[in-house]
């Protein structure tokens, strides 16, 4: 490798010279820089938040007297876990979080797994198209279904007129169906099944049919083959899906706040939000720590549970063959079932939100009530939404849309690039301790649930730290938190696409005297472009729709569409809120389409 030799190197001891040469090797230098960056973005904030739970804050003057700001104390931990408020502050939200997350995850599995099997292993007609439709919920904000749920099932508890259900049947929706754990589980389950579907269908697609055929030759029936061969092979993937989905739902904020608040059903995420808003920082940070520990324990438990059985070698040479199970007489009934599912869970919620945004008077479902008022009016009539201008004329909405696009494009670009660099450093250093450390630290953000991540970043960047100015209220802070949170996925994509680039290509370039930057730019980047595009897309989608991660960090000048939706919902301007969901979905789809196109064009050039 082309390492630099400083002009004064002859004066140095050979050991020092070797060390110098080692750390100036591009791969090692890169690894060290990335390690430092990751520690700064994830490790330091975590320590700072832990520190903040054991010190006094100025705001504590409301709950205690005679303390010295910044001094050590266990007061907050005692108050949270042993005080009169403990039950409502931490234990019940904890229980609610576990119940809703587990319920949603279970539901996601029950829907996602059979769908994955149907679409990858059977001869169901139109599988490719269906596969596309089925993953749509994944690109929608996770709380889209929650808002659509309210359109249908809201009852007079929230006041005003009831939802569509009440309008059609005249029967008031019972509370348990309208709000609380049941709808939260359903709404989150209907979002996360797409995540399970993607993970499990990937695993199913790589199961070699030879194994199943062997079973068949030995006389096993189809059910037995599924139970004894296929299922055990994909079980690790299913378990992983369970754990990953579970730890994701822990930090979900939107769905539980929309559907839980009306009946006082709070989760750790919503309690954390309330605490931070009211200035009870220490309690909020303790809840963040609880979330991180819960998530880490889950993942650790999963690892102990499946441990080495994480994967099986099922792909041998080029022999992979996927034989499709014939559905015979079940083909069309199942097709109809899947289509109905897509209709009910994907299209209907979106259509409901569109319809609702067109209703001049709320919850009046007659055709005469349809109007474009909330989209294009110039405002001024205080009867409707306090006279605010329509969505397409509102500088608030346009500003938020601009911020949303900027945030997701910048984040996705940075994350894509970092992903490639990480992939390069990890793959080229395979087997070394540095590479392992890098790979492990880059996974760390996954352990921190989204809302806790936001809380961590407030604690971290509220005041200047060394040469870095306070980032509170800046756009940069949003970018930073989104970049950090998305790193685990992009480093995965980076590693896998880097693995496909043969060592010899770069070596040849070294021989002909190409510098490291030239090699990276002219060999690595072009060859891993599809991986970059994939990473970019994933980050773009998850950033543009994110609420949990940014809700604590946005301020009026850095508003993005999801936070605006939240605000309008709080103000009771539902038509506006639902209309913006539609704008958000449109932007997200358009962005995807555009990126895919550009990616394709670049790749073929």
């Amino acid at each position, binding site marked *: 490798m082309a390492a630099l030799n400083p002009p004064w190197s002859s004066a140095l001891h050979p050991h020092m010279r070797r060390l110098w040469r080692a750390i100036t090797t591009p791969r090692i230098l890169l690894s060290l820089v990335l390690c430092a960056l990751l520690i700064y973005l994830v490790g330091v904030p975590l320590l700072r938040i832990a520190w903040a739970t054991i010190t006094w804050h100025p705001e504590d003057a409301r709950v205690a007297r005679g303390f010295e700001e910044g001094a050590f104390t266990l007061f907050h931990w005692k108050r949270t876990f042993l005080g009169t408020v403990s039950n409502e502050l931490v234990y019940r939200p904890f229980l609610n979080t576990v119940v809703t997350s587990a319920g949603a995850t279970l539901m996601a599995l029950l829907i996602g797994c059979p769908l994955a099997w149907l679409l990858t292993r059977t001869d169901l007609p139109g599988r490719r198209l269906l596969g596309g439709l089925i993953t749509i919920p994944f690109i929608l904000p996770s709380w889209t279904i929650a808002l659509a749920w309210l359109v249908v099932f809201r009852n007079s508890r929230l*006041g005003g007129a009831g939802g569509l259900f009440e309008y059609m049947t005249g029967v008031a929706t019972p509370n348990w169906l309208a709000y609380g754990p049941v709808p939260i589980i359903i709404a989150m389950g209907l979002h996360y099944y797409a995540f399970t579907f993607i993970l499990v269908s990937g695993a199913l697609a790589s199961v070699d049919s030879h194994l199943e055929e062997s079973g068949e030759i030995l006389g096993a029936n189809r059910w037995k083959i599924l139970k004894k061969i296929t299922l055990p092979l994909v079980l690790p993937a299913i378990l992983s899906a369970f754990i990953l989905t579970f730890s994701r739902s822990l930090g979900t904020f939107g769905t539980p706040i929309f559907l839980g608040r009306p009946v006082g059903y709070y989760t750790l995420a919503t309690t954390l939000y309330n605490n931070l808003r009211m200035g009870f920082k220490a309690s909020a940070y303790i809840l963040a720590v609880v979330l991180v520990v819960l998530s880490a324990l889950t993942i650790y438990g999963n690892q102990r549970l499946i441990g080495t059985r994480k994967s099986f070698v099922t792909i041998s040479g080029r022999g992979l063959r996927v034989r499709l199970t014939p559905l015979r007489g079940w083909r069309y009934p199942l097709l109809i079932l899947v289509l109905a599912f897509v209709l009910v869970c994907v299209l209907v919620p979106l259509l409901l939100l569109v319809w609702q945004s067109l209703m001049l008077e709320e919850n009046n479902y007659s055709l005469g009530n349809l109007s474009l008022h909330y989209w294009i009016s110039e405002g001024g009539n205080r009867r409707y939404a306090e006279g605010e201008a329509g969505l397409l004329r509102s500088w608030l909405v346009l500003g938020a849309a601009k911020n949303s696009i900027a945030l997701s494009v910048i984040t996705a670009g940075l994350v894509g690039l970092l992903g490639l660099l990480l992939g390069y450093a990890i793959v080229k250093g395979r087997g070394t301790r540095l590479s392992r450390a890098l790979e492990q630290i880059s996974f760390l953000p996954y352990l921190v649930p989204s809302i806790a991540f936001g809380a961590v970043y407030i604690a971290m960047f509220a005041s200047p730290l060394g040469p870095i100015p306070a980032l509170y209220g800046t756009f940069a802070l949003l970018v930073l938190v989104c970049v950090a949170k998305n790193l685990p996925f992009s480093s995965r994509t980076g590693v896998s696409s880097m693995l496909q680039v043969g060592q010899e290509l770069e070596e040849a370039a070294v021989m002909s005297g190409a510098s490291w930057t030239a090699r990276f730019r002219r060999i690595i980047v072009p060859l891993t472009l599809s991986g970059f595009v994939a990473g970019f897309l994933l980050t773009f989608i998850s950033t543009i729709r994110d609420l949990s991660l940014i809700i604590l960090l946005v301020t009026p000048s850095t508003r993005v569409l999801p936070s605006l939706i939240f605000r309008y919902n709080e103000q009771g301007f539902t038509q506006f809120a639902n209309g913006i969901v539609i704008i958000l979905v449109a932007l997200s789809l358009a962005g995807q389409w555009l990126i895919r196109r550009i990616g394709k064009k670049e790749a073929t050039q």
Partner: protein
Amino acid sequence: MIRQVSSLTCALTIGVLAVALAGTTPSLGAPAMSEAQQKWLLEAKLGPHSPATHDWAAIEAAARKEGKVVVYSSSSRIPAAAKSFEAAYPGIKVEAFDMGTVEVISKVKEEVRARVRTGDVFFAGDPPTVIFEMVPRRMLWNFVPSELVGLIPKELREPLLVQRLGTRVVIYNSEVYKTPPITSWWDLTKPQWKGKVQIKDIFESGENLSMMATFVKHADHFASSYKDAFGKEIVLDKDCPNAAFQWIRNFLKNDPVFAGSDGDATRAVGTRGQKDPPLATVDYAKYRDVMAGRFVFEPALDIKPVGAVFYQTYLGIIDQAPHPNAAKLMIRWLMGDSRGGKGYEPFFVPGDYPVRTGMLEFPRGAVPMAVLKNKAWTIDPMYAYEHGAKILDFWVANQRRR
């Protein structure tokens, strides 16, 4: 992806400690004045350097040079005031943000602590936090236009200028009920209103928390009005220090609905065509929705022991604001004049009460101050500050959360 966790802790600790400890000392709002602060006060002629009379021509000239003013406001009516300000002072741009009290306060606190100098004018309520946390920590500076000094009672211009008194009231749907369906706050604890009272969780609303503190301060009135409502003496639970705490417990037992905002609660009560509408505790100023024909509701002002609770909405200049002179102009604009004035116009609505004496007109629709005064209490910031946490804890502990 999952295997990575095992030696994660190990990998983490390698470099984290060194980096973390370098920056872990939290920087807290120091009580001593910094040099920058002193310099700013001198230049901005604020605090100890405040003159007895204001030279508005000079302030306006300086404000034009600053060119801009940033207002953090808890009111959704601020854009209207900003618009009229820009028309009156062309060349000075207004960035007005409408955020809700809790957000305004946390934003200003975080910005001052982070030494991010963006905001100029603070415009929000939550008296205990403002008066006992922000003013003593020199996060906010008082500015009273000199010509108003004689027109505003001292307690409404010191330690921070009050722009108007907001009013918390109980409202009912006036399409369904021709007269108020309740006569006492205790009625809200009766079975017929179970699950039918909308309120913003005090965990999310400083105004409501302060209102509860005001109830606690006047607990003996709650004791006597219990007798009026139920015809017998109140018996307190062992852990309820007084009748107001008992009311809070009984109220929470009756399953109130936590609304997302006052707007939500107003809509819930005031939407037309309902059969069994709820009640709600909201801002009287929401009555403008009735005037605009949007909703149908009335406040129940004759309930016992109190018909309304006043709370202060403050105006102040944020510490080391980048546009202090434009901020002064803006504050004068928002205080209006004896006929209301353009800047005060959006706040010249029924249910909001101006603090200056000698107003020639009052907004139509609401009960005049002279009448309401006798049925209302005013939030005592000191009392609310000292008892707020205890009340909040009691509230949280008694919530039957599912």
